[in-house]
């Protein structure tokens, strides 16, 4: 069941906890986190390996269920949402981009991008899908299949697929993690342009350069938020990350 909540945040977490394993083997991946991610802003989540970054992202996107606390996405409390509500949420309010692109290999770029709309029961116009692909610089790659595209191009198709439903929030899990520096820069430029146009973006990254392109950076350690930075450059982000990794 979902309920509508009055909030200015794109994503709001209150007392969210997620534990894996049981007994002595239990690991608290996210530990009592309170976090508001602003609407129309780009927030990067950083932290040492195993700090709970990806789990936090999955909880915020409704891909994992919290053991305790509440999660509100774009004004909708999804804490107790059932599978159908979460499916609806993924179709209409949330876009997700993975490090490994996760495109369907048998479909063309155009078909991959159109897929979420088709699943939502719409028959998208070709021009609509192509304009989204054009917006990520792939107007000339619409009929290519993933294996015929470079990593950067595949990630841009994945971003186009996530954006085609005009989601309230775009979640990105290490979107540049598998890309060379040139492709990574292209993808980050794209995300920056989207954020400047008012798109809410939450991105997990371990790359200070990528995090520095965001409006704000949240640092996580042992499942807890330990620091925040706003408007910092790459050097400042790297220094702060190094301090928390010590």
């Amino acid at each position, binding site marked *: 069941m979902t309920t509508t909540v009055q909030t200015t945040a794109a994503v709001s977490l209150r007392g969210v906890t997620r534990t894996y394993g049981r007994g002595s083997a239990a690991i608290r991946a996210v530990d009592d986190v309170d976090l508001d991610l602003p609407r129309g802003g780009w927030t990067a989540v950083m932290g040492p390996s195993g700090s709970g970054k990806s789990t936090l992202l999955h909880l915020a996107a409704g891909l*994992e269920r919290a053991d305790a606390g509440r999660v509100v996405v774009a004004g909708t409390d999804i804490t107790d949402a059932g599978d159908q509500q979460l499916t609806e949420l993924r179709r209409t309010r949330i876009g997700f981009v993975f490090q490994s692109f996760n495109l369907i290999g048998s479909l063309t770029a155009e078909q991959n991008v159109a897929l979420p709309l088709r699943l939502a029961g719409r028959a*998208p116009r070709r021009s609509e899908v192509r304009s989204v692909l054009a917006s990520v610089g792939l107007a000339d790659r619409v009929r290519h299949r993933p294996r015929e595209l470079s990593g950067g191009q595949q990630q841009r198709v994945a971003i186009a697929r996530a954006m085609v439903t005009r989601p309230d929030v775009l979640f990105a899990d290490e979107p540049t993690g598998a890309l060379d520096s040139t492709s990574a820069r292209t993808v980050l430029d794209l995300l920056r342009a989207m954020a400047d146009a008012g798109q809410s973006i939450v991105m997990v990254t371990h790359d200070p350069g990528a995090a520095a392109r965001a409006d704000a950076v949240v640092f996580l350690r042992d499942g807890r938020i330990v620091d925040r930075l706003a408007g910092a450059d790459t050097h400042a982000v790297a220094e702060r990350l190094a301090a928390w990794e010590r």
Partner: protein
Amino acid sequence: MLRLARAGAERVSFGFPPREGIAERWSLFVGATLSVCLGVALVQSSLLLLITAATMDTPGGLSPTERLRFDDGRTAAVSMLGVVMGGAAFLAIFIISSTFAFTVDQRRRDLALLRLVGGSRGQLRRLLLGEAVLLGTLGAGLGIPAGLGVMAVQAWLMRRMGFVPDGFHGQWRMWILGASIGTGLVLAVAGAMAAAHRAARVRPLDALRDSGEATRVMTAGRWILGLLFLGGALALAIVAPHGGPAGGQAMAMNVPLCAAVAAAAFGPLLIPAVARLIPTGTGGPLGSLTRANLRDGRRRSASVAAPVTVLVALVLGQAGASASFTTSGIEQLRRTTAADLVVESSGPIGERIAAVPGVASASTEIELPAQITTGAGEDRETSTITVLVVDFAAYARTHPGSEALLGLDHRTAATGPGGDISAGTTRVELPGLDLGDLPVAAGVPAAVSGGADLLLPRGMVPPAQLTSAPSATFVRVTPGTALPDLTAHGKVSTVDRWLAADAETRGSTSNKIMVLVLGLGALYALVGVVNSVVIGAAARRREFAEARVTGLSRGQVIRAALAESSAVSVAGILLGLVAAGGAFIAVLNTTAAVTGTATLDPPWTLFAGLTATILLATGVTSVITSWSATRERPVLLLGARE
């Protein structure tokens, strides 16, 4: 996805399934379609032949005796085709449902991606069931004409083996179209349903990462199915010794079917565990890789091994049980026949032979077909049987264990070794002669090998009925005298030679029945085995490419895949052997209970041949599929283009 196919020209069109999807997953779709096609063909052929035999008209111009013999032959053919039909249905259900479940399982990742971009559980289920409907219909559509070919082969086999008259051909029935399409559809959808339900239920992130619920190999459904069929196999094995000769045999023959389904259900637990114990012949890193793959691909291994297990259990268990009961029957006949010579002739020649010098006693058994009617009102039932007309006293002397006959008068019939008639009252009609309601007393204990169902005393049947009927006279020679010359009375054999010839006939009949019952079914199961190896390799192109970029040569990848496939096949064969072993235990207990001597005659030559065939088929298929899957340069599969 079915709805996606209807997109207009200016809309983004997907087609169904996507053309590229077919190219990439052709082996999954072809495998699933083939399993339906052959399953439907086999069931349709068996069903049409069964209906044809059951409705076969008795030819005109036959004498009453010939008419009854024809009826008896028809009943036997219908019974046999019933077993063939049962076997075909069992295999079709098993092979089609497991193939469809496997094809769904092989696409977990793609299905998870659909969920992540907004696909609902219902959409996934509809997609998979829609595919099952499409492939089931296509397979059944191809299976209908294929079934006509199978029917021609089965009818030819039956004619050649003498189970049906020369002119026997399966007859087409229009309604079979609906039955065959329905069979293909229902089995395909039923097979895909459980897998589709499971694939839709698993959380997308788990399916994508192959973690959490997605890694659980033993579902509640598998446990229930496995325990249910294991319980069934145990129950059959326990009850079989108490089921008499006919019931016990039927139960023992069904033990391997139940045990095989149970073994296949527990496959994800058992197959990798057993396979890891089998030396793969590849040491070092290749051996480690093979063992790791066996550990990691538990569901794949179990799916590949399942048809192997069923094939071995079915062929070895049923052929072994059949051969053992035949051997037991021969041994029992040997123990219950006290004579020196046998004269095969016609009519009641006992007195004439007894008069020959040197003959101590002679017992003539004259065989006649008869129609019996039991029960009354709605329970009234008429069937054609074989009766033996005998002299009770002489019969009892010749067949130890039949002493109960000595107390019967010439107005009472007695139960025969066939065992299908109980003591009571039975109406008996011989060809052209109604004997009326006869009291039937307990006479001869039922024999494993069957025989005449009813013994009639000589005085009950007029001599005219007996003159031309085939007879066997068992002769005891006076001790201390030379064997008398009885060749003037018929074909003379020593009892040992007669028993040997009888054993050969019975063995040959038993083998023919097994070829009919198992032959095409076993071929279908073997196709199922090859199918599962192909489907298992279809989704491994990326994995093979990863192994190659890690440093393995193409040959090493193919060798590792072959070692893995062979280990899985051997594990499947061993589980099949265990399932067949269940039948063997039932056979030992049943033969001991019925004849007093536990008998087992496992067909080891058949087992060796079957094992070699399975290993060759899976080995060659594995090499071809892994060779084909590694044709592309690995970097093209793994690396993105610049």
